[in-house]
């Protein structure tokens, strides 16, 4: 066997024409076979999980921009009703606050306390708020007394460390002559994100539309062809969807609080809006952790935390996305746990099978937590072969044969929300979801681009040059109505 040509060439020429095929030796005789050996597979795997999952479930919301170039959108959110107040400091200089039934003053950061409320200090001392607290600048001053009749009791000074959370409870009053008090409430607020725009172009020249190669290309559900353009468009669409997928994960919100988009296109001086992607959204609420050896305790901790934010009975659809590395870590975690608990020996016949020649190997990809959550590993090529994974491979950031990125795990909550919509949605601009147009010149329009715009014996062209281009504009962003129920677990090699 001899190598008759370089197997992979990357061509970044602006226009694709016959020269592209000659330069890359696609029209030279191929001696071995006409079927291509795809060194990295056909790259048609599951590399766009977000696009597949959201669009597949019709999880798309169309928004009309309110102003020119303003792609922001808002959605109402309701916080959690809590019986918590945060302490700022002890007002008087005391060593044993509250001892022998003495009253003292405490500054709190919020106005959650009202007259006669019960207060629970972190060390478990119960106190009573004697009067309606008074506002002192940004703080609230409450006069309090320990409820217990034990005169030795006092509140430890450690309970007054600024930022410590105290609990509050039922207002208690004497049997007669009492006055009224007040109550608290949580009101809805609005969260904000925005979408951005994408632009893709495929430029051709001359008669590339009808050029055949010495290689036969096959496509799912279509007869094999030697025409180059179907393959060109397959790659064009693959690149576009993979670039979009990556952006949906990694995009960063770029509008300042006063409404300015910091990124300006220097040619047009127009703002280039970008919304928060999966990573920024989840990290912004603190749902981020690192790991090196995955354990079930770690997964339990994450699931418990996620479910701490779901006290309703809406069905859950948690999907654990990861790559081959993460899948292996998941299996190792379950194996280690089952081995530590002595379950592994009885399960031996599940892992070692066969007759005279034995087979060793069976793997876990599901874990059911104590609160009945079934975590299923969804391996996706985004983590194995996406942009970050490709950079890891090239930069030597590998562990056990997989790029670091393939060990990362994202637990995403695709559940339905209370209104029947999806928690994670693609957001697009109404009317500009995806606009595709052909900029037609003298170049022949390939069938794979769809019908030519011009018709009739003398066609019309937009340019007199022997070129044409396939132009795409898209608006898109991703949004989590409730970001607290998703989590990013980062494999940390550093």
């Amino acid at each position, binding site marked *: 066997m001899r190598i008759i040509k370089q197997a992979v060439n990357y061509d970044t020429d602006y226009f694709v024409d016959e020269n592209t095929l000659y330069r890359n030796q696609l029209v030279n005789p191929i001696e071995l076979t006409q079927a291509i050996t795809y060194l990295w597979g056909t790259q048609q795997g599951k590399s766009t999980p977000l696009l597949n999952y959201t669009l597949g479930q019709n999880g798309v919301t169309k928004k009309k921009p309110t102003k020119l170039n303003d792609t922001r959108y808002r959605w109402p959110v309701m916080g959690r009703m809590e019986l918590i107040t945060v302490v700022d400091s002890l007002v008087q200089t005391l060593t044993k606050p509250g001892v022998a039934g003495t009253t003292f003053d405490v500054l709190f950061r919020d106005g959650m306390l009202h007259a006669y409320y019960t207060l629970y200090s972190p060390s478990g001392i119960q106190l009573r708020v004697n009067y309606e607290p008074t506002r002192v600048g940004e703080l609230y001053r409450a006069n309090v007394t320990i409820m217990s009749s034990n005169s030795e009791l006092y509140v430890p000074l450690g309970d007054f460390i600024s930022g410590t959370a105290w609990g509050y409870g039922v207002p208690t009053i004497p049997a007669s002559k009492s006055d009224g008090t007040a109550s608290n409430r949580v009101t809805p607020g609005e*969260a904000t994100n925005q979408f951005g725009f994408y632009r893709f172009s495929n430029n051709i020249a001359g008669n590339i539309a009808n050029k055949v190669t010495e290689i036969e290309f096959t496509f799912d559900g279509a007869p094999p062809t030697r025409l180059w353009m179907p393959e060109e468009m397959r790659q064009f669409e693959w690149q576009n969807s993979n670039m979009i997928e990556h952006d949906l994960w990694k995009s960063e919100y770029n509008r*300042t*609080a006063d409404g300015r988009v910091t990124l300006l296109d220097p040619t047009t001086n127009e703002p280039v809006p970008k919304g928060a992607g999966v990573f920024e959204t989840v990290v912004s609420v*603190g749902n981020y952790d690192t790991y090196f050896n995955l*354990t079930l305790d770690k997964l339990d901790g994450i699931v418990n935390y996620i479910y701490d934010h779901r006290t309703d009975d809406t069905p859950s659809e948690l999907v654990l996305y990861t790559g081959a590395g993460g899948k292996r870590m998941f299996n190792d975690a379950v194996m280690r746990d089952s081995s530590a608990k002595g379950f592994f020996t009885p399960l031996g016949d599940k892992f070692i099978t066969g007759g005279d020649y034995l087979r060793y190997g069976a793997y876990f990809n599901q874990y059911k937590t104590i609160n009945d959550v079934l975590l299923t590993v969804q391996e996706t090529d985004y983590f194995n072969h996406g942009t970050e994974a490709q950079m890891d491979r090239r930069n030597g950031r590998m562990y056990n044969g997989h790029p670091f990125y393939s060990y990362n795990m994202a637990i995403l909550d695709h559940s339905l929300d209370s209104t029947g919509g999806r928690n994670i949605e693609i957001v697009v601009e109404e009317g500009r979801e995806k606009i595709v147009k052909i900029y037609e010149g003298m170049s022949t329009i390939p069938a794979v681009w769809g019908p030519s715009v011009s018709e009739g014996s003398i066609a019309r062209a937009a340019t007199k040059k022997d070129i044409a281009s396939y132009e795409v504009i898209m608006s898109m962003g991703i949004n989590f109505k409730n970001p*607290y129920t998703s989590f990013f677990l980062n494999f940390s090699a*550093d």
Partner: protein
Amino acid sequence: MIEISKIVEIRVKQQESEFQKINSTHLPRGADRLGESKRSTSKLKSDGKLMSLLMPELLGISEESPKWDERLVEYFGSLTVYIQNTLKLEVGHLYSINDPNREEDIKLLQKDNKLINSDESLANYVESNIPYERRILYGRPINSYDYLVHRIALEHGHVANNIKDVDVSPRIRFYLYTDEEKAIQLKEEAESKRNLIKAQSIILSDDTVLSDVLWAYNLVKPNGNADKYKDDEKVIAIDRISKENPSWILSISTDKNLSLKAKIAKYIATGILYQLPGSDVITDGINKDVTLGNQMIDVIRYFKDSSNAQVVNAYEMKYKSLIGKIDK
């Protein structure tokens, strides 16, 4: 037994994104988490002595247990430290000359230093001469969990070991902060405040210097016609500039070229010279192709160069003729 306490804080690096800022009220951030990293785990687990002295208490089993390795992997893998803005760790040691787990190492120390004969002398010697990472050989951590978290943080790529390194890498999410660092920071702050007050007094004690400083600030940031300021306004302006740009006030108070800089600023205000916006580049006011200097130091050199005396004199004559035309 002697207890030498040492408090270290792990602080969250404040790096709120625009998305967080805009949603901070309705989507508040929870506690940040510091989990395992390959580097910290590998480094600590490769130190067998550290593991055998520290981990039995945390794992609840001895090193001889057949489950030792497995439990170590599980413990490090499951560890998540929750940090709500800051977390204080007790990373000090308890020293006892008769500590049975450290007998051999203490004896080796005594071999080289005969004065180590009590808990106190052991504590003093170790605290002054032994690096922090090796003190565990001679003293038991006061709080084993806090000590482990600190050792993990010291090796973790997401933690800067001091506040100065916080921007070294975009991966850094936390930094370590000690009382010593706090004292140094306080000292530096006090020193710079002291110098600033000294600089302000130099400026405010001389009317000409005061006026020149206000003019010269125009070269850094548009400050308007300094001659129009009333006395009280001048004092307030100096206070404002001190807050905006304290390092500039410090340097200008002893700048030998102050009057020349003020003059250049006046020439710019009258259109005799032109300063390229947002830069130090200064050109002739009419012919902008004639650059006097790309940096202030070049412009000063131009004015001081005797071969340019004719041009400089011409600028001065022109300024005198225009002096009444500065925007009032």
